[in-house]
């Protein structure tokens, strides 16, 4: 717990000044300390509440700002169920509005603590309403100078180029004038006429050289041959393929920086043939709460028909996200993920490469038959403690003892041996 509070303190330091100022100048009825309130808010409230939008409970910014009766708020936050039981009309109304999900009681929070939270929520709401206006006016101002700068730079470069060209011409004419003055004018024209004749003659001479012609043709043949050889090897091989995906999901952030295990999303890799693209409910495990303002996350919301302000799903608006498949094996090759990951103990990165560093995924391995066979030849099978091979070692022991081995002993009675 101490670690968390330290983290919050660090973060709050940056917000403290602004929050403190706005609270001092505006919130007359909240005498609490918003900085302290923030620490408590992040430790106790964030699991169910956000300032700007609805989560499990109402959006605290507008809710607490619109409610002016601090004594009621303090009572509600400390023990909401007592108010509902006492049939307080306001309490009963909001309790029913939120499907009668009771809010956790916080008897450990003192009146001063709750006042701090209220002050924090009001200060944040104030910042939000003011910040919204600021953003709109700031946005064009931010892009204005940057595009101006770029155009300015381009203009300067073009002008500099023109100046250099003009100067070059001037230098040329000046030099010619100087030479004229010294009576050292070189007749350029006859030389210019003579040159192409000379060149053609040279080429004609070279073309008559049979050895040279032979070598040129040979080199051409080698070049074409090697090009077509490499091209044929690369035909049907998608190594390096990096299509544009409908959502800019970064493995670098999720699997690299946050070290979320591959299995969290691709749980199928441990259980089935297909590693599976996670269904959107897996995304929503986190993104119901975090990064809710990102346009990329809103693509998930749109695909689910989810309304982030109300926290409701409308399945009639749902439409699946069409991810672009990168790794594709032909239908005549059978590949099973669980066999490799669970039985073989192969790390995901062995075939998929440094996926935790890819902000955009590409096909790392060639996925050719040669590549498969190479690994199958080199990999030593681990029989010990591997339930998959129990039957195999058992059969081998039977053969060694000279016992009769039937197809049934080797799993020949399994349904899928015939009915697949």
């Amino acid at each position, binding site marked *: 717990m101490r670690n968390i509070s330290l983290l919050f303190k660090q973060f709050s330091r940056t917000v403290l000044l602004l929050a403190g100022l706005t609270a001092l100048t505006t919130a007359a009825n909240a005498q609490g300390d918003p900085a302290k309130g923030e620490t408590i808010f*992040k430790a106790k409230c964030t699991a169910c509440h956000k300032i700007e939008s609805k989560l499990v409970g109402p959006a605290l910014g507008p809710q607490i700002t619109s409610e002016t009766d601090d004594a009621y708020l303090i009572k509600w936050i400390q023990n909401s169920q007592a108010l509902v039981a006492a049939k307080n009309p306001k309490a009963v109304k909001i309790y029913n509005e939120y499907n009668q999900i009771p809010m*956790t009681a916080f008897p450990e929070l003192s009146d001063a603590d709750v006042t701090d939270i209220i002050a924090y929520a009001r200060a944040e709401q104030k910042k939000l309403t003011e910040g919204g206006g600021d953003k709109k006016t700031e946005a064009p101002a931010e892009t204005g100078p940057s595009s101006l700068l770029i155009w300015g730079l381009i203009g300067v470069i073009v002008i500099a180029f023109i100046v250099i060209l003009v100067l070059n011409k001037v230098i040329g004419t000046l030099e010619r004038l100087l030479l004229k003055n010294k009576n050292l004018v070189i007749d350029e024209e006859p030389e210019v006429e003579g040159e192409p004749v000379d060149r053609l003659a040279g080429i004609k001479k070279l073309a008559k050289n049979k050895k040279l012609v032979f070598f040129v043709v040979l080199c051409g043949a080698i*070049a074409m041959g090697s090009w077509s050889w490499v091209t044929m090897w690369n035909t049907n091989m998608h190594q390096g*393929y990096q299509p544009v995906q409908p959502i800019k999901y970064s493995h670098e952030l999720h699997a690299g920086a946050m070290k979320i295990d591959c299995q969290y999303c691709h749980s199928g890799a441990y259980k089935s043939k297909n590693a599976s693209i996670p269904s959107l409910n897996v995304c929503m495990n986190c993104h119901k*709460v975090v990064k809710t303002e990102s346009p990329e996350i809103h693509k998930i919301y749109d695909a689910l028909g989810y309304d982030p302000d109300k926290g409701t799903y409308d399945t009639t608006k749902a439409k699946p996200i069409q991810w672009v498949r990168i790794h594709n094996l032909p239908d005549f090759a059978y590949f099973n993920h669980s066999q490799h990951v669970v039985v073989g103990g192969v790390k995901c990165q062995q075939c998929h490469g440094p996926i935790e560093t890819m902000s955009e995924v590409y096909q790392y391995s060639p996925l050719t038959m040669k590549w498969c066979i190479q690994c199958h030849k080199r990999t030593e099978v681990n029989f010990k403690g591997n339930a998959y091979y129990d039957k195999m070692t058992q059969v081998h022991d039977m053969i060694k003892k000279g016992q009769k081995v039937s197809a049934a002993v080797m799993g020949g009675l399994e349904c899928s041996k015939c009915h697949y």
Partner: protein
Amino acid sequence: MLAMNKIKILGITAISIAASILVTSCRDKRSTGWEYAPNMYRHIAYDPDQANPNFADGKTAQVPPKGTIPVGFTRFDFPNDRGGYDSASVVAKNPLPANKKNFEDGKVLYEHFCSPCHGKTGQGDGLVVSHGYPAPPSYSKGQSSRGGAMKDLTDGKIYHTITYGVNAMGSYASQLSPQERWKVVAYVHHLQTL
């Protein structure tokens, strides 16, 4: 003449090799490159993640019909509300034996599915939390939002939470099978003692 030719020939071969390498290596990463007989690679059979015009919603991966359960699936008949949570606490008990294998499996599953938020030691200090996700309470020291200390959570309460989720935590029913959930429950009991 021959000496001159040698240099020229060497030069031409070097250039042509470089050119052929350039031509073949300059592949567009957004395209799959040249394909021969693509009908053998883009198969007719539908993969689970593929679009499928045969279904109304256009997906191959269909939700099983209502009321069906997979073979070997154990049902959890406690509803997703306070009553279900409380009765699960009393009635539901971990059916798996508390052996080393189950414990080790539970540890791996916990680390893959839970530790991003709850932390490796269950203190609610996972890496996702340090990136801004609201912190869950510690298993050993925290207070449950539904009353009581986190260290006193029973089998049924933990299983109920994994199945349905609570507050900011989502449901893990689609990612963890009932067996796997019970393994995680056993490991969480270990974390409650830390």
